């Protein structure tokens, strides 16, 4: 049997002698059990005062219109206010939650409670949340029109519910978040861009609590996709140590873009808190103007000596634990690090074992200087239909790589 929270609240409660003791005013659950089971009811006298609470194992039976207890009225306890209880009315009804499947933030109109016969008696499970018109209709008309009419009306509206396993709770207080065991683990499976969209919908406090709970890698990936305006304030809200850990996990070019938006002091502090190799890389990227090739490039790329052969190149690639994002091109350099050309991954794969890499390179050898304006970058990508483009200094040393996703971001910004 399915009960709706909106209707369960306010139903009469009778004690073991059959005397009415009040109405249900709040339903509490322990969230660490999935799906959450109702563990306590709060009662209110008919006059609106006289609050009591009763734990679930003292509930004898639950019907559509009444709850019967095993104990007498005198045995009821004073209201318990334990923060680790999860209150369905206060914490969930009318609040926002994350719909993990739909990848968006939605508002709860009603809750579905499923009555089951458990091991020790009747159990009430939180089975789904209603976010649709049907729940809205019920909230609006419950108690105002006869139930039969309401059910009839409801049957004309499409139900829109989210099963509990796809619900992620939003809690703006980090300490309570821990007490309620909200881990947000389901969110780590989302694509960073989807997670970023969700994060943008939240209030600053809720965002902060969410990011405190998530791991560095997930935060780093999501942060790269969040609106630039929000990035700096999110990072600052997490404190300098955590922020440094997160920036370390980011792609160097994304990290540089992010740091460029922060006050100089904060940037220096962050870089000091980071592992020195990564900090140096980002520091170098920060030197470039944002709208130049140097500002757009990343320093994560793979360069090989141009005299190597295909077999050794392939075995070298296999030994690299983590290949760069969007890895489509290899770059060839001489002993001094001067750019000699680039080869596509496809060509390397099909090349015979002994083939020397420099014979595989794409023609013409294209590159840009660090100071080249972003317009030149876009023009070259457009003209030669490129996916990547190497960036060199005045002595033609390979300094970094611009990838097509950075170009699209720039184009999208000016649209």
């Amino acid at each position, binding site marked *: 049997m399915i009960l709706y929270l909106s209707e369960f609240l306010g139903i009469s409660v009778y004690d073991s002698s059959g005397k009415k003791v009040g109405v249900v005013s709040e339903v509490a659950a322990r969230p660490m059990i999935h799906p959450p089971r109702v563990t306590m009811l709060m009662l209110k006298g008919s006059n609106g005062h006289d609050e009591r609470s009763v734990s679930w194992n003292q509930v004898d039976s639950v019907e559509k219109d009444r709850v019967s207890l095993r104990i007498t009225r005198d045995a009821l306890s004073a209201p318990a206010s334990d923060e680790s209880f999860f209150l369905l009315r206060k914490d969930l009804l*009318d609040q926002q939650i994350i719909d993990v499947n739909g990848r968006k933030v939605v508002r709860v109109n009603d809750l579905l409670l499923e009555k089951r016969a458990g091991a020790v008696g009747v159990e009430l499970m939180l089975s789904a949340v209603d976010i649709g018109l049907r729940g*809205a209709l019920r909230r609006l008309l419950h108690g105002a029109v006869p139930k039969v009419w309401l059910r009839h009306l409801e049957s004309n509206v499409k139900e829109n519910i989210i099963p509990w396993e796809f619900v992620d709770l939003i809690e703006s207080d980090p300490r309570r978040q821990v007490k309620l065991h909200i881990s947000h683990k389901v969110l780590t499976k989302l694509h960073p861009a989807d997670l970023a969209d969700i994060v943008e919908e*939240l209030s600053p406090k809720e965002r902060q609590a969410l990011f405190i709970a998530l791991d560095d890698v997930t935060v780093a990936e999501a942060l790269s996709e969040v609106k630039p305006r929000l990035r700096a304030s999110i990072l600052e809200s997490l404190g300098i140590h955590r922020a440094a850990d997160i920036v370390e996990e980011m792609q160097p070019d994304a990290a540089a873009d992010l740091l460029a938006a922060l006050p100089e002091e904060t940037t220096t502090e962050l870089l000091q808190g980071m592992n020195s190799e990564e900090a140096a890389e980002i520091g170098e990227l920060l030197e470039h103007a944002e709208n130049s090739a140097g500002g757009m490039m990343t320093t994560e790329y793979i360069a090989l000596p141009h005299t190597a052969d295909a077999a050794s190149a392939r075995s070298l690639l296999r030994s690299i634990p983590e290949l760069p994002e969007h890895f489509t091109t290899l770059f060839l350099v001489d002993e001094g690090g001067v750019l000699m050309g680039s080869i596509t991954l496809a060509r390397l794969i099909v090349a015979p074992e002994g083939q020397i890499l420099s014979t595989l390179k794409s023609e013409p050898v294209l590159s840009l200087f660090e100071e080249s304006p972003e317009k030149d970058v876009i023009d070259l990508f457009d003209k030669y239909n490129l996916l990547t483009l190497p960036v060199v200094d005045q002595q033609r040393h390979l300094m970094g790589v611009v990838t097509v996703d950075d170009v699209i971001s720039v184009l999208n910004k000016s649209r």
Partner: protein
Amino acid sequence: MNFLKRWKAHIVIFFAVVGPGFITANVDNDSGGIYTYSLAGARYGYALLWTLIPVTFVLIVVQEMSARLGAVTGKGLADLIREEFGFRITFLMMLALAVTNLTNVMAEFAGVASSMEIFGVSKFLSVPVAASLVWLLVVKGTYKTVEKVFLFACSFYICYVISGVWAKPDWLVAAKATLIPTVRFELGYLTMFVGIIGATVAPWMQFYLQSAIVEKGVEPKQYRQSRIEVIVGCVVAIVVAFFITVSCAATLHVAGRQDIADAADAALALRPLAGEWASYLFAVGLLNASVFAASILPLATAYSVCEGLGFEAGVNKKFRDAPIFYWLYTLLIGLGAGLILLPGMPLVQVSYLSQVANGFLLPFVLIFMLILSNRADLMGRLTNSKGYNFVAIGTVVFLAVLTLVLVAMQLMGKA
């Protein structure tokens, strides 16, 4: 060249200080506002000027409360009402807001119709064109670029300041009327009082301003700047209202023309400045104000309603994902424009009465804002001060009493 450069720099500075507070204040002087202040001056001369002083305090207190709620909670007003007061109350509030705002949208299209009539364009042409334009402007996402043009055109209000001075009003009488309150217990006078409050402190503004503050990402840290901007905006709005009333009092009222039937009548107030061109000047200014407000009002309403009731909203969403939002938005424009096209619709009267409706709704919005901004768990250290509560509660009580008096007078008058 040099001049052009300097001029450009000035514009840049101008738009740098412009934020949500300033924009809201300017949209506040919309068609309904212009006609209400004009009618106040034409009918009662300087007699109602004193009301602007208490209204200034109310406006600043209310707007500041909205901005603070937005900055501290990071949530819109409709969101907060829903989370703290439940579905049913939110639904009623949103219904009232939607209906009141519909009358405001009608006022904007009445402004379009009456201003274009001066150019000899029939309302059957001007209103549908303006409605389609506004709809496209927002749905196609080009609004943000046009906003600056609207805002710049708002400098038209300076014309009222100049005209008000050139009309040589009796400053002694005006000053006396501003500083010494006079109350007349007449239905018309008291209704006009409510209208002035409703025109200045429009309920939809509180929803709009709070959302704009959240959207801009203002946080408690940077809140001081926003507060200054909000106060400056309020003062500008009141100065404009003052001079519109004075110009109309010094021209129309003095000449014995106590009623304003169309835009040509209202334009007479600009005669001291523009002579024969007064009606064209007025028409352009009114048209700008009307279209500006018409592009914000239906959108802000659709946002608030969907936010409060938990439907997906946003012009960056597809129609399929946010059908209710788009329907509501389209309906507000379609209905608002359509009703204005009914033959014999009294355009000035519609504009004025919409502001009276605002005045009736305002105490309800204020009650919610008061409760919310006094909650320590929500606002932390930034709860209302005693002075704020005094002004806000005073306004609520005053408006409630005034409304009851008006209803009573209406009934007794009829009986």
